[in-house]
C-alpha cells in the first residue's frame, strides 16, 4: 500500500478521533445543563468527630413541601441510618449524607445517585423516584471487614 494513501487515512482518522471526542463532550454538556441534579455537591464541611453529637441532624426524613422531602443519612460501619426509607412515586428527595468514621458509598441502585461519603463532607444529592419498587442502597466503598453487609433499602409505593 502506498505511503501517501496511508498518510491520508491517518489524517482522516485523527480528525475523526477529535470529532468523536467533541461529540461526547457536547453530550456531557447537554446532560449537565438539564438533568445533573444527581451530581453530588457539598452542603458544607463538618468535623467528623461531631457527627453523632449534634454537628449533624439526627438521621431522619422530613417533609418540606408537597411531594418534597429531605433525608438526613449517616453512613457508618457497617450500616446506614436510617436503613430503610419510604416514599411515594413522584416524590422528590434531597439526601444529605455524611460519615462519622471512614469513607463509604451511598449508591441507590436503579437511580443516578452514587455518592462518595467522605468524613468531613456533607454530600447533597437529589432525585425523583419515578417507578415503584424496592431500591437497594449499596455501600460502594471499602470500609472494613463488614463492608459487604452494608446494605439498606428505599421502598417506593404507588
Amino acid at each position: 500500500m502506498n505511503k501517501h494513501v496511508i498518510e491520508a487515512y491517518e489524517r482522516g482518522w485523527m480528525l475523526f478521533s477529535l470529532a468523536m471526542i467533541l461529540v461526547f463532550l457536547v453530550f456531557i454538556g447537554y446532560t449537565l445543563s438539564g438533568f445533573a441534579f444527581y451530581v453530588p455537591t457539598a452542603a458544607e464541611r463538618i468535623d467528623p468527630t461531631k457527627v453523632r453529637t449534634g454537628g449533624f441532624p439526627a438521621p431522619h426524613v422530613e417533609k418540606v413541601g408537597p411531594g418534597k422531602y429531605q433525608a438526613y443519612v449517616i453512613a457508618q460501619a457497617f450500616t446506614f441510618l436510617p436503613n430503610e426509607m419510604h416514599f411515594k412515586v413522584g416524590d422528590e428527595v434531597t439526601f444529605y449524607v455524611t460519615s462519622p468514621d471512614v469513607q463509604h458509598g451511598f449508591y441507590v441502585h436503579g437511580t443516578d445517585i452514587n455518592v462518595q461519603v467522605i468524613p468531613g463532607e456533607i454530600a447533597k444529592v437529589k432525585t425523583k423516584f419515578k417507578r415503584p419498587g424496592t431500591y437497594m442502597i449499596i455501600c460502594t466503598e471499602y470500609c472494613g471487614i463488614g463492608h459487604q453487609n452494608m446494605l439498606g433499602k428505599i421502598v417506593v409505593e404507588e
Partner: protein
Amino acid sequence: MATLARKDEYADFPVKKVSLYYITLAFVALLIGTLFGPFQAFNYAGVNLYPVLEKLLPFVKSYYQGLTLHGVLNAIVFTQLFAQGALLYLQSREMKLLPQMGVAWFSWWLALIGLVMAAIPLLLNDATVLYTFYPPLKGHPLFYIGAALIIVSSLVTVYLSVELWARWKRQNPGKPTPLVSYMSVVTWMMWAVAAVGLVVEAVVLLIPWSLGWLKGVDPLLARTLFWWTGHPIVYFWLLPAYVTWYGLLPKHAGGKLFSDPLARLVFLAFLIFSSPVGFHHQFADPGIDPFWKLVHTVLTMMVAVPSLITAFTIAASLEITAREKGGRGVVGWITKLNWKDPVVLASVLGAIAFIVGGAGGIVNASFTLDYVVHNTTWIPGHFHLPVATAVTLTHMGLALALIPHLTGKPVVRLPLARAGIVLWFTGMMVMAVGMHTMGLMGVPRRAWISNMAPNVRGAYSEAAGMMVLNGIAGAILFVAAVLIFYVLFATLLQSRRLPPEERPEVGFSEALSGPEGRRSVMVMDRLFFWWGLAYVIVLVVYMPTIVRIWSTFVSAPGFRLW
C-alpha cells in the same frame, strides 16, 4: 585460583545485570500478587475460598487482605519495577551509553527495601487498606514508609533517564533523540509530574499521621492528592507497553514502524495531558466544584486522542508488514503476522483488549454517565483490560525476548508460554464481560460478597449468571499464570547459556517515515520546555481546589476496621 575467576556474563554492558534484577523482582511481585487473583474471581462467583486459603497460608485473614496484596504488588510494584528495568535498559542500549551505575543499583536496593517494609504489615494484616489506602482507614506506618520508598526509587530512575538523555544530547548536538530513548525519557518526565500528588500525600499527611505526629488527616485532601497521581499512574503503566508497541513490535513482526514523528507526538501529548485529569475519579465526591470536574473531563477526553492515534499507527504498521509478506483481504492479512514471536502475540492480544478497555474508559470519564458505574464491578472489569491484559501481557512478551538477550539463557518451552498468553487474554476477556455486566446490575467492587451476613445474603442473585463467568475466568487465568510463570522462571533459573554470538540482539524498529530533517521533531525534542509546561498545567488545574480544601482542613482520626 581458577574457581574464583567466575566469568561476569554482563561485563560487556553492565546495565544488563541491574535491568535483569529489576525485571526479576518485578515478576516475583507479580507472581505473588497474581496468585490471589483467582480467589477474588471465585468471590465474585459467590464461592468463598478464603477459609481454604487460610488453611494453606495462615496469615491471610480475609478477602480484603488478599485484595490489598493483589493491588499493591500487581498495579504498583510490578508495573514500576518492570518499567525501571526495561526502559532504562532500552534507552541505554539505544544510546550506547551507560547510566550512572552506582545510582541505578542504589535505586534497585531502595525499591527492594521499600517492598520488604511494605510487605511486612501487608502480610500481617496490619495494612488492609487496599491499594488506594484512603484515610481515615489507617494502616501500619511501615506500609506508608515502604510505599514511599518505592516511589522515591522511581524518582531516582527519573533522574537516571534524564541525565542519560542530557548527556547524549551534549555528545550529539543538533541530532534528534533516538525514538525509543525519546519515549523512555518522556515517560519518566510524565511520571515526575504525576508523582507529586502521591509524594505530598505520603510525606505531609499519611506518614506523620500513621506515626501519631498528626491527630487527623483531611480525607478529601488525601483523595485529591491520591488521584493527582492515581490516574496518570495508568499512563505510567501504559507508556512502557507503548514503547514496546512502537519501538520493538514492528521489528518483531518483520516490518517497520509507519511513522516516527507521530510516535513522538503521541508521547508528547501524554507528557502534557496525562496529569490534569484526576477529578474523573472523583465525580462522586462532594466538595469538588462541578466546574473543575468539567475541566478535568475535557482534558481526560483529550488524552484519549493519543491512544486512538496509537491504535491506528500500530495497526497500520502491522498491516503494511503483513501485506509485504503476501497477506491479502480485508482481515486475511492478519494470518501473515509472525504469531510465533511472543512479543507479537502478547502485544497484539494486549492491544485488542486495550481497544475494548479504552471504549469503557470513555464511559468512566463521561462526567454525567459515571454515576451509573462508579465503584461497581464495572471499574475493575474495565481496568483489568488496559492494565492486567494490555500492559501485563506486553511486558510478559517483552520479558521473553529480553531475558535471553540480557542473560544469554534461551527461553525454556516457549510453546507453553504462547498457550499461557492466549489463555490469559481469553480469561481476562471473559472476566471483563462478567464484571462489566455485574456492575450495571449494581454489584459493588471490592466487596466480599461470597461471605455476606444471613440477613443480606442473596442481594445480588439477579447477577448470578454473570457471576458464573467470573468463576470460569478465575480458573482459566490460574492455568494461564502457571504456564507463563513456569516458562519465565524456568528460563531465568537454568544454568545453560548461549555463546555470545548466538544471543539475540534487541530488535529496535526502523521507521518508514524517519525523524531526519523534520523541524517538528526538533521542536518536540526540547523536552525541558515541554516538561515545564506540563507542571504549569497540572498546577493550574489543581491548585484552586487544593488550596480551598487545605484552608478548611478537616482533621479526621484514623480507624482500623478490618
